[in-house]
């Protein structure tokens, strides 16, 4: 089922959480709403679910206006960040809940409920804990049960609110791959909220980047990463170095006087470290080295004193340069950007 959101607005008191949002989610897609906290992504999800009412605007399911359809009639599956499992029911009863509360006319017979729940528990690979209670389960298990419970009512749309936010890093990684595979099997239109750009990139078909109640960009993961529409998207999807237009006299960013008002952005891993000055390079002094996992992060202080530049190299690249005697803390080197992005300087250009 496709989801469409038109001119949606919502505010809580003075805070605008949805500022005239327009969004189209085609049937069968897995979409991530990505943004920092307070960007309105959870509110948008809850409005789609019907748990929140918009101040104005419409929500359409398959082209039909569902803005004022009650939550229980929308046929959506919703997975909560903190699972929201019913603590006094067994896992089996939790998953069966959506079937048991149906009116008598549409309620499946007991044998069918049992079959269906067992199937779902198998799907989430937890059929062996049907008789336990939620508090006896680990976080990852609880979240999988929450998903099974949401799927039990055969929803047309699956909505997930920071589904992996409360889990530790390793479980989170496993679960998001598992979610991706599950989606590939079931093709149910899914929307999930996250503040983790890596998670969004890994799981989603498309990413909706949100900021302060507005949609900054909608696109495939590669698209938003490689062609960010706004400085915010660029900054939110990874670290970035900032160069103001006036700096281009240094040659670091190239271009001419027409760009005097523009701001240039360079990602740390898109900077070359050179022993000798080259065309468009900047002189800088190495002040700090930090190796995390496969990469080494270097902090440089610009020769002209206009701030710091961050560079990221692979461990091997760093080792090679260090052994060549180029990267010594306290000594100078030359930096050259491999790739530069320009944006017109916004009225309130924030620091990177």
């Amino acid at each position, binding site marked *: 089922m496709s989801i469409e959101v038109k001119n949606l607005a919502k505010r809580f008191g003075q805070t605008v959480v949805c500022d005239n949002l327009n969004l189209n989610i085609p049937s069968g897609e897995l979409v991530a709403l990505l943004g920092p906290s307070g960007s309105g992504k959870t509110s948008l999800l809850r409005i789609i679910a019907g748990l929140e009412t918009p101040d104005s605007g419409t929500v359409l399911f398959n082209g039909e206006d569902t803005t004022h359809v009650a939550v229980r009639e929308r046929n959506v599956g919703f997975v909560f960040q903190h699972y929201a499992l*019913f603590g006094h029911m067994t896992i089996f009863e939790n998953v069966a809940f959506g079937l048991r509360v149906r009116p008598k006319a549409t309620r499946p017979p007991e044998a069918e409920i049992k079959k269906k729940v067992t199937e779902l528990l198998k799907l989430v690979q937890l059929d062996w804990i049907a008789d336990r209670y939620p508090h006896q389960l680990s976080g990852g298990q609880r979240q999988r049960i929450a998903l099974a419970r949401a799927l039990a009512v055969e929803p047309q749309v699956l909505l997930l609110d920071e589904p992996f936010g409360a889990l530790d890093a390793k479980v989170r990684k496993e679960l998001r791959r598992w979610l991706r595979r599950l989606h590939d099997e079931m093709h149910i239109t899914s929307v999930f909220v996250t503040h983790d750009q890596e998670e969004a990139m890994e799981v989603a078909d498309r990413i909706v980047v949100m900021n302060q109640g507005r949609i900054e960009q909608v696109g495939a993961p590669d698209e938003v990463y490689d062609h960010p529409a706004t400085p915010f998207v660029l900054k939110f999807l990874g670290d970035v170095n900032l160069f103001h237009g006036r700096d281009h006299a240094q040659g670091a960013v190239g271009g001419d006087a027409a760009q005097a008002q523009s701001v240039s952005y360079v990602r740390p891993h898109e900077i070359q470290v050179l022993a000798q000055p080259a065309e468009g390079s900047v002189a800088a002094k190495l002040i700090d080295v930090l190796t995390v996992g496969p990469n080494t992060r270097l902090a440089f202080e610009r020769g002209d004193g206009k701030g710091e530049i961050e560079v990221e190299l692979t461990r091997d690249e760093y080792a090679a340069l260090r052994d060549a005697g180029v990267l010594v803390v306290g000594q100078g080197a030359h930096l050259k950007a491999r790739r530069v992005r320009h944006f017109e300087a916004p009225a309130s250009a924030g620091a990177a």
Partner: protein
Amino acid sequence: MSAVSVANPLPVQSVAPPDVARATTEPVWVRRVLIGVALVFLSLFLFVPLVSVFFEAFKKGWEVYVAAITEADAVSAMWLTLIAAAISVPLNLVFGVSAAWAIAKFDFRGKSVVLTLIDLPFSVSPVIAGLIYVLVFGLQGWFGEWLMDHDLKVIFAVPGIVLATIFVTFPFVARELIPLMQAQGQEQEEAARVLGASGWQTFWKVTLPNVKWGLLYGVILCNARAMGEFGAVSVVSGHIRGETNTMPLHIEILYNEYQFAASFAVASLLASLALVTLVLKYIVERRVHQQMAQVQQAGAAA
């Protein structure tokens, strides 16, 4: 003379100190003295009076005791006490659950005012509570004439006693449920609604099971107070023997008439009720703590 006086609506935290560090323990003699003082105080002011109630009750023998509690006026007092509790406890159960539901699950203007109002019966003296009803429904009160014309009696009759009891016991259930419901939040209710449950189903299948122990705890306290209430009931009752006397009032009348054995016999019934309540309260309190701990655990795991 209310044998069951439970003014504290919240479960008292009686958690054993976990692994007290050596640096913070006191010398043995200090500990013994403190424990000793506490024990002496408890026995003097709680245990001895309780024993004396039963001692006095049986002082003149079993027959006098049985006669005192099977006498017509005593039986009628017991009935009235039971009726007052049987009406006020279920009503306050409904009021308390609705008030707690409204306060914990919705945001509205004047929420703090409602919260304060719920506490009013705790802060107002029971005598004042009784007087309020006399002023409203009494012969010289606002509705006095109208009631008279329609031959309805509220004050110095059973309805007045029930009203006064409802007033003084109002906060027990609500006060017990509000913190529990607030701690639990709304996520489970939202999950139930998304899964297609109606409001009614959500309440019975999700909300109520989640607060059942807290609710039971509130009901036990409410019942204890309803049966033991003296002040408010005394003002509206009129002390008509065999008609508007509840057990606490009956005890007072017997005592004032120097029928000590009879007085203590009836008092021993109320005291037994208090003991039963305490045991129930202890059992339920443990379940409430477990429920709270589960909520906190779920929150911590999240």
